[in-house]
């Protein structure tokens, strides 16, 4: 019998983290199925393979004043932040019962009451917003932090440079989580980021940076804990770089002609954060195969229910096309 201290997390906590990982994976994979079957019409940026980044970071956001700002590949962040998967799935279908009444869709999932300030359709659009939310945390002295998830492609956007610098200058509790999946859309980070060194790039703004293997939830969880704690204690912003592969293309339907043959399959085989999590907790004996199977069953049921509910959910009324542009006009 291995030592329970091996992961430093209680059984309940592990079960919850696993539930989140499995929910994101099932959510994303089911969207892919639905798209391929022609039942979903839009294009969706799936985060399979990157689940541990979202889960490991959001696990530390326990202050009601904490916020996250997500990006186009944002389903995982939203689920890890506690967004309701049925309301999300309805939004992805464009239902009026969706989280955003069918107006935002996949790239604009937001749930302000849960501190989810929106996924974002603009690469690099999120970091300045997170700096503002973090500035609000600082001005109010509420102990909250604002975490923004950005990809390795976004680090070449000028707005990201401005946001990182201003976060340092104003010393706000913003945390920049850079998810390095090696691709910015169809082009590699190695090609498009001068020096190719994300860490040096980020540190050059004066941010302390921690770099971590994003396929290891425990590593992400631990590193994110320190980084978020640093910001929460009023020491200014910080950066976290998580390396984890993207199992799918840039979006559903991406022919992925740019990708070396077998790369994604290899990632699914050797660098799957869920497999790695399972192996770890089974090896330490903290969770049993039955524990994991019970979570898997519940997750499948929840996503089945979400897909069914979304398919049956009401459609928006065209008369509402221009509602809610303003509070008053």
């Amino acid at each position, binding site marked *: 019998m291995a030592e329970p201290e091996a992961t430093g997390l209680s059984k309940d906590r592990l079960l919850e983290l696993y539930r989140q990982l499995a929910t994101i994976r099932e959510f994303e994979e089911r969207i892919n199925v639905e798209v391929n079957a022609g039942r979903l019409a839009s294009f969706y940026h799936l985060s399979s393979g990157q689940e541990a980044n979202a889960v490991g970071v959001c696990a530390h956001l326990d202050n009601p004043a904490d*916020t996250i*700002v997500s990006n186009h590949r944002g389903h995982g962040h939203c689920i890890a932040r506690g967004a309701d998967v049925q309301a999300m799935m309805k939004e992805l279908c464009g239902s009026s019962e*969706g*989280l*955003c*009444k*069918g*107006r*935002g869709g996949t790239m*604009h999932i*937001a749930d*302000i009451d849960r501190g989810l*300030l*929106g996924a*974002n*359709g*603009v690469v*690099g*659009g999120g*970091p*300045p*917003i*997170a*700096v*503002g*939310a*973090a*500035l*609000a945390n600082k*001005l109010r002295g509420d102990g909250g932090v*604002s975490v923004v998830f950005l990809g390795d492609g976004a680090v070449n956007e*000028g*707005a990201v440079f*401005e*946001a990182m*610098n*201003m976060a340092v*200058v*104003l010393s706000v509790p913003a945390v920049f989580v850079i998810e390095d999946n090696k691709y910015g859309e169809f082009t590699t980070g190695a090609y498009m980021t001068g020096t190719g060194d994300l860490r040096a790039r980020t540190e050059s703004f004066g941010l302390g940076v921690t770099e971590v293997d994003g396929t290891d939830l425990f590593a992400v969880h631990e590193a994110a804990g320190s980084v978020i704690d640093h910001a929460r204690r009023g020491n200014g912003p910080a950066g976290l770089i998580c390396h984890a592969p993207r199992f799918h293309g840039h979006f559903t339907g991406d022919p992925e002609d740019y990708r070396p043959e077998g790369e994604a399959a290899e990632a699914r085989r050797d660098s799957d954060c869920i497999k790695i999590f399972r192996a770890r907790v089974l090896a330490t004996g903290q969770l049993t195969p039955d524990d994991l199977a019970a979570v898997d069953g519940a997750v499948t049921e929840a996503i089945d229910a979400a897909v069914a509910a979304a398919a049956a959910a009401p459609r928006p009324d065209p008369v509402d096309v*221009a*509602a*809610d*542009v*303003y*509070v*008053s*006009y």
Partner: protein
Amino acid sequence: MPVKDMRTAINEALRQEMEADESVFCIGEDLVGGFGTDCGKDQGNAGSFGVTAGLYSQFGGKRIMDTPISEAAIIGAAAGAALVGMRPVAEIMFADFVTLCMDPLVNQMAKFRYMFGGKTTCPAVVRLPCGAIPGSGAGPHHSQTIYALMTAIPGLKVVIPSNAYDAKGLLVSAIRDDDPVLYFEPKALYTESCDVPDEPYAIPLGEAAMPREGDDVTVVAFGAMVPAAIAAIDSLATEGITCDLVDPRTTSPLDEEVILESVEATGRLVVVDESPPRCGLTADIAALAADKAFWSLQAPVKQVTAPHAPTPFATELELAHIPSPERITQAIREVLA
């Protein structure tokens, strides 16, 4: 009633709203103009135009702060802070620089409420000193109005005061408003004075003013062109020609009713703006009249604008660019011919 210039009126609105509501704060480049220096004074230049003078002494660095020269981060931060309930008043030093923060304005704060299903508010104000100061030679990057571009964006409100009294009341409303408001300050009017009450007062957004009333022609003018139109109209009054002058004060929302009522009464319309003509405010108002008051029109609508050219440096060129009272007078005569 005390007489104050527009700069003072704006400063007073900022100060009184900051006093009334702790969530109001100012953010922008050089608003204090002394962060990071050791000049021995409690503030520096207070912005390029001195509009924020005295606010740092009264409220300190947590309520008014200098930022790096980073418009995207300033406006993005204002968007994020407003999304979580603060009331930031951000400044873009010259309206021309709005091009550097189009994403947070156009894609982010303008769309939050709509794309998040009506569940959010974004009570941010962006102050934008705009337009030419005739004879100042500010040149192509420091003279644009650019408010027409922003008026086209659903989700943004756009305010353009034309005098100190309106400037104060409209800014108070803008700060209290739960939608993002772009507040354009015609730089040419900063030193223009009129009666401005000391106490706070709010002028509703979306209500036009009518600084002149008459029978023969409707003139609609924006911002710095309102005083020019007044000069033109007053000069014609000596000849017995009288005009309605509509100052919309906000271009989004637009008070269509006041404009249309006036056009229906006079049957003649002149629209004046110091911006270039294409896809601009004058074309917008002309289209409004064509759509909704066509059968009242007795003459073609006249648009008085800058040419389709940037604002130039040399005084002769700059004065040729900005519509003059004489050009407005001529346009009024033409619609009466």
